[in-house]
């Protein structure tokens, strides 16, 4: 018993140190994010965004939208993309071997005509079945190809795109009309930028019409509501905070803008991983630093894309387990970056953070929970102290949530109704009770599946957009 007590005490003290370090870093991220947000707001004060609309020298952007069995929504999605406000835009819709009527809908709605399948095969992908153009919508290109997954579809899109910049999105993501005008800004302001990412917000509960979010609303359903608070924290604090601390490693798979020549030179998206978006960003940054090429990754908070999050525990669990498998895979593939001074802040701060905080968090948290329970049960740890410690941890998470909401309130204020603010506070407070412990379990399952070398996507079902989607991914809010 004495030995067990000793082991439990040692484990708990290690976890305590971990807890202090991680939470201190969250505090640093919060301050960094607030500073970056303030700086961004100052720089964009009264900025005339319509100026770029009339620019004759704006770089061309190709929107790459992979679609798999999106028949019911694909036409609306394409129309929504074609009406984005940007002066030089191309839309490349990649039908990734759909078995439903996706292609038939596209042919009918956009009067597609088949053109000869000639393109430069710079990166590999599954064979094309057809290439189509629309006389009525000259900016639309439709690629019909054999099913190969999201990475494969994006590679086909990158080959065929004609833009200097390519924007990878999910076909059912709703992008705000002005988003590209803001998203492109870092590319115009620096030759060293290789990718930019925008904020993903939760569309559940929002008023949506004709492919546009008319009014943001916080869902009443707890599971979706908690994810709204989680996404806000991840994007407004996590990703924004990293802008000043060495840059991001994750650019949303549902909404990320890349320099096309850099992506092609890096070999495009990697297949055989479920974390293809993060893998590409890490590779681009690593390659840029290796060869003195553009490597800066910038997160811009106000270009917004809306996505529907899972509203059932089963789907959410499958999504989170897949995200964690992806993270494990990317960390393993790039283990040479860990504490490698050659890569500067990427090797010494950003990558170690993703390993220690993002990857190992569920392991440490699980040990902590089990150890604490055992310790209290065996009398090794004073229960009063345990309860107090638990309260400190919960309180800290609550502080982060409230401060994130305050940042949102003082900056973008997307939720106008008082009821939405109250709901957000409620969901933020409830996120640490039950939900967080579930994510620990799902992420542990992800690590286990990674060790078993499993690369299946699971099923992502969406209620609002009626998508059953094994290939086109959803967005990860971690970090």
């Amino acid at each position, binding site marked *: 018993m004495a030995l067990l007590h000793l082991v439990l005490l040692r484990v708990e003290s290690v976890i305590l140190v971990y807890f202090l370090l991680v939470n201190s870093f969250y505090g640093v991220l919060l301050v960094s994010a607030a500073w970056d947000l303030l700086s961004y707001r100052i*720089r964009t004060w009264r900025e005339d965004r319509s100026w770029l609309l009339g620019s004759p020298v704006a770089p061309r952007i190709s929107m790459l939208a992979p679609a798999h069995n999106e028949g019911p929504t694909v036409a609306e999605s394409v129309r929504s993309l074609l009406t984005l406000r940007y002066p030089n835009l191309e839309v490349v819709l990649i039908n990734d071997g759909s078995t439903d009527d996706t292609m038939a809908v596209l042919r009918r709605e956009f009067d597609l005509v088949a053109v000869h399948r000639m393109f430069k095969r710079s990166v590999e992908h599954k064979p094309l079945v057809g290439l189509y*153009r629309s006389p009525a919508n000259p900016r639309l290109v439709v690629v019909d190809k054999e099913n190969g997954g999201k990475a494969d579809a994006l590679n086909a899109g990158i080959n065929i795109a004609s833009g200097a910049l390519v924007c990878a999105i999910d076909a059912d993501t709703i992008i705000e009309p002005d988003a590209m005008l803001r998203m492109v800004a870092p590319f115009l302001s620096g030759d060293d930028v290789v990718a930019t990412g925008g904020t993903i917000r939760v569309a559940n509960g929002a008023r949506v019409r004709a492919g546009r979010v008319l009014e943001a609303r916080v869902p009443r359903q707890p599971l979706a509501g908690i994810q709204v608070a989680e996404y806000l924290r991840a994007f407004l604090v996590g990703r924004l905070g990293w802008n000043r601390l060495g840059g991001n490693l994750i650019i949303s798979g549902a909404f990320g803008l890349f320099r096309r020549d850099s992506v092609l030179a890096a070999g495009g998206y990697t297949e055989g991983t479920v974390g293809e978006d993060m893998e590409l960003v890490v590779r681009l940054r690593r390659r840029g630093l290796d060869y003195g090429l553009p490597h800066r990754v910038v997160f811009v908070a106000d270009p917004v894309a809306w996505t529907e999050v899972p509203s059932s525990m089963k789907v959410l669990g499958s999504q989170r387990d897949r995200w964690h498998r992806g993270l494990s895979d990317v960390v393993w593939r790039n283990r040479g970056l860990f504490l490698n001074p050659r890569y500067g802040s990427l090797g010494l701060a950003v990558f170690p953070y993703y390993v220690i905080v993002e990857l190992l968090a569920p392991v440490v948290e699980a040990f902590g929970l089990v150890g604490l329970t055992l310790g209290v049960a065996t009398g090794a740890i004073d229960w009063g102290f345990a309860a107090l410690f638990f309260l400190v941890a919960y309180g800290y998470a609550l*502080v982060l949530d409230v401060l994130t909401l305050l940042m949102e309130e003082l900056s973008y204020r997307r939720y106008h109704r008082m009821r939405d603010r109250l709901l957000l506070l409620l969901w933020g407070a409830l996120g640490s009770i039950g939900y967080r412990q579930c994510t620990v379990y799902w992420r542990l399952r992800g690590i286990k599946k990674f060790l078993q070398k499993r690369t299946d996507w699971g099923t992502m079902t969406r209620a609002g957009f009626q998508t059953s989607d094994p290939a086109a991914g959803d967005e990860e809010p971690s970090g």
Partner: protein
Amino acid sequence: MPWSGEHVFPAAIQTSVLVRVVAVEACVVVVGIALVLGHGLWTGVAGRRNAARLARGRTALESILGGGRGLNVLAALPRRLRLEVLLGVAPSLAGAQHLRLTALADELGIVASAEARCRSRWWWRRLHGVRLCTLLGGGATAVPPLLDDRRKEVRAQAAQWVAHRHDEGLIHRLLRMLDLDKGTTRFAVKDSLVRIGRPVVGPLAEHLSVRAGPSLAPALEVALALADPALLPAALALCADELPLIRALAASVAGAIGGGPAVEAVSLMLGDDAAEVRAAAARALGRAGHWPVAPSLFGLLSDGSWEVRLQAAVALRTLGTPGMLFLRRAASSGDNDASDAARLMLDLPDSTLRTL
């Protein structure tokens, strides 16, 4: 003995410390919630109150721009709302209407305040000052020095301000900035030069004829967008530049301008060693609409470079009937590369050609 923290972290982790931490957290949470809800409440009330004022302000502005009265209504508005009313319409006004808006902003003291901001020691105030001058007018003496500001954001905004002016001295300064600046400023400078249009041509031609090296590329991009015949001599001279990038851009400029000398010079570049130059030359000849070069372009359909084959095919398609004849011939030829490029071009709907 049960662990209460003292064994491992005697100083830091004691129950009393944890209690204090929880108390601080509770305070932060309560204050945070109060701020979120209080701010929400305040913006709601202020929004409703301001909506009526803004509506009155907009009506007054509409009346003033139409030659009527309403200055006192605008002057009575709080400064922030006054700005909101004026800036709301500024980007969509031009010519006499915009001059009237500038005069109004001057009368309301907004221009003077913006010019004062341009002279601030704080970069963000200078940025905001020059931004207001760009949108509302003014800043004739306050903004030009900001083209040399130490902050790139301010320089870029000042370059944008120049787009509304046709001053030769300022145009020369913008052209010098093309050499020196990168990123935001270079994009803003290129954009402004193209928007200024015709007055840029003389200084740009001079710039192209005296400068050398890769820094000429952005100036050539401006020349390409302007495509003015006065730029042709400089472009033709650069067609023999030692850098492939410059030769390719010069060929594009010459092709966009067109005419006998341009076509003659660019036709010679179809045999250039660099693929990017051959591709640019092919595209330029298509743009120039010079159909006698169709046989040469047909030959390029078998080029070793994919980009050259594609641009030759695009050019043939752009040439119209003569080019189409060659494309049909290539499509049925035994050369797979030429056939592929030709078939793609033959299949493309006419409306998509301008997107290529």
